[in-house]
């Protein structure tokens, strides 16, 4: 968020033999690119947006309306918000969470809601969701996160797809600054699967683990969120979407619940990426919207537990799902409403205890082969024996030859 981070490294790089003019240019550009501490936007992008719009629309007397153009951009954004706010109705969800005995208490939810409002006001987001809370190890406070679909700008390379489809913001305490989490890399997901660490609550804390994790706690947090989201988020499956009776939702076969987030492949990506062109064996995950019934069993128990929120008044009960694979991941479904929430320490359940992987075998100094294998020198007795054996063999061969000759003569 700070200005220092978003400045390109050019001015601090005197090795590039830039002319003073070019250096001035770089400085000016980096200044324009400095992100605002309030909104995260920068002037460079804003200007380029305005100019693009002018060139696209080609209005007459541009100079007269140029000021308005700039304002128009802002107004439009504000206008959209009034029509349809990206802020979720968290209190309504909280009501259902409370029925289901999951989530957070009401006061905390209000605080999260206010924090989300703050986030929405300062960032151009299209849709925001409250993701959950990760309980942490140290004195720093807890971590609620929303999740949002990015505004419809040109997608950057690998972002907006697969595991990076959504952008996550975290904060330690509702009301503190929201920090945007960086996109997750496949290496981080693969590595996060092998380690098990508590979160400290400090985003810049190193993750000290074996095998080494590529990144700090920010990246580990992002990787765990991606893993949990892939396993947890589901959707009520109905073509007409009329809502499903609660009894059917709590049906133990779980066929009315489907995953709506793509499965993460063992490679650490959602879509298969071919490392070598001539390797035709892609890893395939279950397709999107797979029924939960097809999830793998976890140590002989179903991956999800379906319950009704009330056994006393089943007419108005809501359906609740508890994940057994990721303890702390819950979902509710009631008529057309459904939501997921995660409150836990961010670790996958396993019946067996965690064992860190063994260190790799020691590397060989040379490839072993006949040229470098040391053989023991033969002793004089062995040499003598060998010589005798060779002599015998030679004699035997001579005899054989003689015998053969004799045979031929006989014929």
């Amino acid at each position, binding site marked *: 968020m700070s200005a220092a981070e978003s400045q390109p490294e050019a001015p601090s790089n005197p090795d590039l033999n830039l002319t003073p003019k070019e250096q001035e240019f770089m400085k000016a550009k980096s200044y324009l690119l400095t992100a605002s501490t309030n909104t995260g936007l920068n002037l460079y992008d804003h200007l380029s947006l305005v100019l693009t719009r002018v060139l696209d629309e080609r209005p007459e007397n541009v100079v007269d309306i140029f000021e308005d153009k700039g304002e128009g951009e802002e107004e439009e954004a504000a206008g959209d918000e009034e029509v349809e706010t990206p802020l979720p109705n968290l209190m309504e969800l909280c009501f259902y969470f409370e029925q289901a005995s999951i*989530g957070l208490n009401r006061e905390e939810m209000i605080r999260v809601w206010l924090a989300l409002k703050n986030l929405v006001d300062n960032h151009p987001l299209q849709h925001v969701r409250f993701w959950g809370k990760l*309980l942490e*190890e140290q004195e720093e406070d807890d971590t609620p996160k929303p999740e949002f679909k990015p505004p419809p700008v040109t997608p950057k390379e690998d972002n907006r797809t697969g595991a990076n489809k959504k952008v996550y913001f975290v904060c330690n305490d509702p009301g503190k600054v929201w920090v945007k989490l960086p996109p997750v890399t496949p290496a981080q997901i693969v590595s996060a699967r092998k380690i098990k*660490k508590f979160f400290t609550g400090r985003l810049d804390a190193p993750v000290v683990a074996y095998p080494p994790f590529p990144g700090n706690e920010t990246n580990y947090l992002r990787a765990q969120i991606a893993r949990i989201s892939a396993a947890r988020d589901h959707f009520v499956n109905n073509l007409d979407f009329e809502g499903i009776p609660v009894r059917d939702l709590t049906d133990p076969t779980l066929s009315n619940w489907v995953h709506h987030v793509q499965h993460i492949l063992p490679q650490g990506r959602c879509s298969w990426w071919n490392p070598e062109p001539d390797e035709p064996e892609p890893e395939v995950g279950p397709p999107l919207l797979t029924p939960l019934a097809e999830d793998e069993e976890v*140590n*002989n128990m179903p991956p999800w537990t379906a319950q009704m929120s*009330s056994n006393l008044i089943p007419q108005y009960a809501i359906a609740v799902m508890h994940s057994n694979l990721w303890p702390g991941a819950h979902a509710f479904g009631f008529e057309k409403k459904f939501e997921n929430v995660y409150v836990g320490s961010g670790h996958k359940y396993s019946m067996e205890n965690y064992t860190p992987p063994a260190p790799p075998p020691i590397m060989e100094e040379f490839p072993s082969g006949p040229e470098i294998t040391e053989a023991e020198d033969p002793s004089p007795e062995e040499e003598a024996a060998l010589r005798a054996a060779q002599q015998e063999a030679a004699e035997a061969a001579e005899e054989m030859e003689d015998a053969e000759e004799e045979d031929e003569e006989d014929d």
Partner: protein
Amino acid sequence: MDAVGLHLNIDYVGSSGVILSPELKAGLQTSLVILQNENKFDRVYFWGKIMGVKDDYYIAQGVYRDEFGGRRTFYSKDCIRWGLLPPATAAMREKSKLAKGRFTGDPSYEYEHTTVKKVGEGEEATEEEETITIKEEDRLSSVIQEIEEDVRIVPRGAFIKTPTGEVISNRSFDGLTVSESAKLCNYMHFREPVVLTQKSLLQRANLDKAIDFMDSLEEDIPRGSWALQFERGSGLVVLRSLLWQGYVFYHVPGTRCSGSVYFGNGEKNLDLPFML
């Protein structure tokens, strides 16, 4: 957590994901009072919830005048009908350590554990399989007792030991100050002391016999198995155990208000050394 004022106190731990639905709260408010009257308890505590795969167990405890001895544990699946849990014997606890995995939610479920034993000596040795069955009710009782011994904590000074050996709540306890409540040495394990008895006389010289009759959290192994956090400014201190994930203790500094609750799987976090 004291059953009196449960509906208010449960909010203190709500930020840790401990939520009771209004239906359960209403059920507990009624049924715990009945439980107390029927058994003539001095106090009833809501102990927490152990989540099973199919169903959950809600646990309550009743005590008479002495808080240490004579504690009786009840369990329920709907927070209305309570059943007495048999106290865990040493043999039961030894056996239930063999049961692995989550609770199922059915108290009569039997876990099976098979061990391979060698019978005979030398070449005549044959392998024999021995199957031990563990009833879930026994396991539940053992796990509850284990959690109590490992992590149940109270603020220092909240309970006193009388000259007759009884442990009763301290009427003159006024809560820890904010700075005191940030230190682990001001919280005590609510169990018969283990570490304290091994200390030398010199180390015990400055202790107050009436108050310091329990182990403090500072000597817990491994170090850092507690997550201490302040909430609402400094208006609430929350301690979460990382050894028994789901155990949450709260205390409002400057008041008598404190308590703890366990909402978890009933499985000990044996991976703790790797995770710190």
